[in-house]
C-alpha cells in the first residue's frame, strides 16, 4: 500500500455494449495519487472520461477494472468522507438555501440539535458570502449564487476530500472569476484536499498544485502530471505577472491542442509509461525558445554590432 492519501490504480472504464457491439474502453490504466491538502485539477478534452473518474472517486459510478484507495480504504460506494460539488449545482428547489445545507449537515451529524445545525450552516454560507440569502429558494438566486450554495453544502460536511465536477462551467466569466477567488481563499484557509475537473486552463493554473493532463479517449490515459511550481499564495489579479505563468500556460495549451491525441496506440506506449506518467515542471524550465526565434536574435545582435560600428 502506498502512503498517499488517495491512490488510483489501473482504473479502467468500459461502457456496456451498445446494440451488441462491444465498446472500446473510455480510459484505461489510469494511475495517480493525491496527497493530503493537495489541490489537483484534471484537464482533458470532452469524452476522455474525466467525469467518470470523478464519479468513481465519489462512489457514484463503478470502474470496470482497477481500484481507488482513500485513507488506506478502498473507495466503494458514496461516502460522507467525500463531498461533491455538481456541475449543475443540484440544489433541491423545494428547500431554502439554508435547508439545502442543513439537509447535508443533518445527514452527517444526525444527532445535532436544530440550533447547532443552523449555526453551523450559516457559518459556511457566510464563508461563501451568502449570509444574507439563507431563507431564499434556489430559484431566486443567480447561477453563481447557486453554485456558491453547492460549495457551502460540500464544505459544510467537512469531508476528507472534495470532488468538484466543473463547478464553474455554466457561469459567466466575471462570476466565475470571483468564485474562483473565493474558492482559492477557502481552500488556502482550510487546507482541503480537492480533486477538480475543469476545461479552463487558467482556472487550473490558478487553483491547482498539480494538473493531470488526460489524452483523448477512447483509451484515454494520463499523459502527464504538470506541477504548478508557483508559490501557493496566488491571486487572480497578479498570477499572470509571474514569469512561470505563461510557460505553464503554453505547455498546457500546447498539450491540449497538439499532443493530446498522440497517446493512443502501440507506438505511443513505447515511450509513455501509463503506470508512472511523467511529472513535468514547465514553470521552472528554461525557456525552450524556438529555432526561428534564435535565428532572429542572432540577426538582431549582428545588426546592433553593425549599428555600433557605424555610429563609432
Amino acid at each position, binding site marked *: 500500500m502506498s502512503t498517499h492519501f488517495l491512490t488510483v490504480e489501473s482504473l479502467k472504464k468500459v461502457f456496456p455494449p451498445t446494440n451488441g457491439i462491444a465498446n472500446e474502453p473510455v480510459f484505461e490504466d489510469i494511475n495517480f495519487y493525491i496527497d493530503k491538502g493537495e489541490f489537483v485539477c484534471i484537464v482533458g478534452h470532452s469524452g476522455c472520461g474525466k467525469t467518470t473518474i470523478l464519479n468513481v472517486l465519489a462512489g457514484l459510478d463503478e470502474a470496470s477494472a482497477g481500484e481507488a484507495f482513500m485513507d488506506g480504504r478502498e473507495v466503494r460506494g458514496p461516502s*460522507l468522507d467525500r463531498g*461533491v460539488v455538481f456541475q449543475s449545482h443540484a440544489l*433541491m428547489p423545494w428547500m431554502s438555501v439554508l435547508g439545502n445545507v442543513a439537509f447535508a449537515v443533518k445527514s452527517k451529524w444526525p444527532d445535532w440539535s436544530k440550533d447547532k445545525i443552523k449555526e453551523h450552516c450559516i457559518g459556511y454560507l457566510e464563508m461563501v458570502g451568502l449570509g444574507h440569502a439563507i431563507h431564499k429558494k434556489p430559484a431566486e438566486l443567480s447561477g453563481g449564487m447557486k453554485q456558491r450554495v453547492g460549495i457551502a453544502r460540500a464544505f459544510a460536511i467537512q469531508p476528507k476530500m472534495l470532488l468538484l465536477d466543473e463547478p464553474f462551467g455554466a457561469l459567466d466569466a466575471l462570476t466565475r472569476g470571483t468564485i474562483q477567488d473565493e474558492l482559492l481563499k477557502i481552500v488556502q484557509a482550510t487546507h482541503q484536499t480537492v480533486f477538480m475537473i475543469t476545461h479552463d486552463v487558467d482556472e487550473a493554473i490558478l487553483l491547482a498544485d498539480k494538473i493531470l493532463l488526460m489524452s483523448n479517449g477512447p483509451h484515454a490515459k494520463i499523459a502527464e502530471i504538470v506541477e504548478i511550481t508557483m508559490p501557493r499564495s496566488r491571486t487572480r489579479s497578479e498570477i499572470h505577472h509571474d514569469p512561470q505563468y505563461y510557460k505553464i500556460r503554453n505547455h498546457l495549451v500546447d498539450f491540449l491542442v497538439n499532443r493530446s491525441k498522440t497517446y493512443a496506440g502501440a507506438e505511443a506506449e513505447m515511450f509513455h509509461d501509463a503506470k508512472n506518467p511523467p511529472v513535468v515542471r514547465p514553470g521552472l524550465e528554461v525557456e525552450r525558445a524556438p529555432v526561428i526565434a534564435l535565428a532572429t536574435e542572432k540577426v538582431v545582435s549582428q545588426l546592433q554590432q553593425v549599428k555600433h560600428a557605424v555610429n563609432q
Partner: protein
Amino acid sequence: MSAKLKLKAAFISLLMLAVFLGAWQLATQPKESAVQALADSEYAALMGKGQEKSGFPTPGMVGKSFVQYLSDPFYDKGPNDKGIGIQLAHSLGRVAVGFLLAVAIALPVGFMIGMSPLLFKAFDPFIQVLKPISPLAWMPLALYSLKDSDISGIFVIFICSIWPMLINTAFGVSSVRRDWINVARTLEVNPLRKAFLVILPAAAPTILTGMRISMGIAWLVIVAAEMLVGGTGIGYFVWNEWNNLALPNVIFAVVMIGIVGMFLDLFFGWLQKLVTYRE
C-alpha cells in the same frame, strides 16, 4: 391592469349568461294558441291542446327549484325526499372514501414501481389493460362479490381513481432528477429519509396532477354509479327526479354537480400549487 382585465372578463361572462338565459326563455315561452279563445279551456287541456308548451322548463321554473332546494338544503323526509345538501354529502362521502383508499394503494405501489425499472415493466401490462376499462363495467362484479350497493359504489370510485394516481406517481418517482438522487447518495441519506425528503417532494407536483385527474374522473363516475346503485346521492337524486318528470329539479342538480366539481378541482389546483417548486 390585470384587475381591469378581470372586470372586463366578468362583464363578458355575465353578458353571455344573460344571452343564454334570454334565448332559453324565448325558446320555452308558452305560446298563446287560437284554440284557447274558441273552446272551453278545460276541454282543450283535457285533449292535450290549449297552451302549446314545449315541455322544457323555463328559466323561471328552474329558478324556482333553485330557491326551493337551496333555501332548505338539509331536510330529510324519507328515502325519496332529501335535501340537496344531504344528497351531495352522500356523494362526496363515497368519493372521499373511494378516493382515499385509492391514494392509500396508489402512492406506495406507485412509489415502488417508480423506484424499480423491473417492477415498472412487470406491472405495465396490467396497468395498460386495466386502465381503459370503464369503471361502471366493474359494477356487476362488485355487486356480486361485495353484496352491498353502497360499498360497490365506493369500489367503483376506488377503481377509477387509482390508475391516474398510480401512473403519475410511478412516472414522477422514476423521473426524479439524477442529480438530486446523487446528492442524497453522496450524503449517505438513509432510504426512508431519501424517500420522504428528496423523492416525494421532487415527484409531488406530478403526483398531485394524477390526484387531480383522479378526482375529476371520480366525480364524473359517482353520478353514473349512484344512478345504478340508487338509495342516496346526487346521482340518485337526478334519476329520481327524472322518474318524477321534474325536469327543473334535474337541471338544478346538473348545475350543482358542475359547481361541486369545480370546487373539487379548485381545491386540488390549490394543493398542486402548494407543492410545485420553481427550478
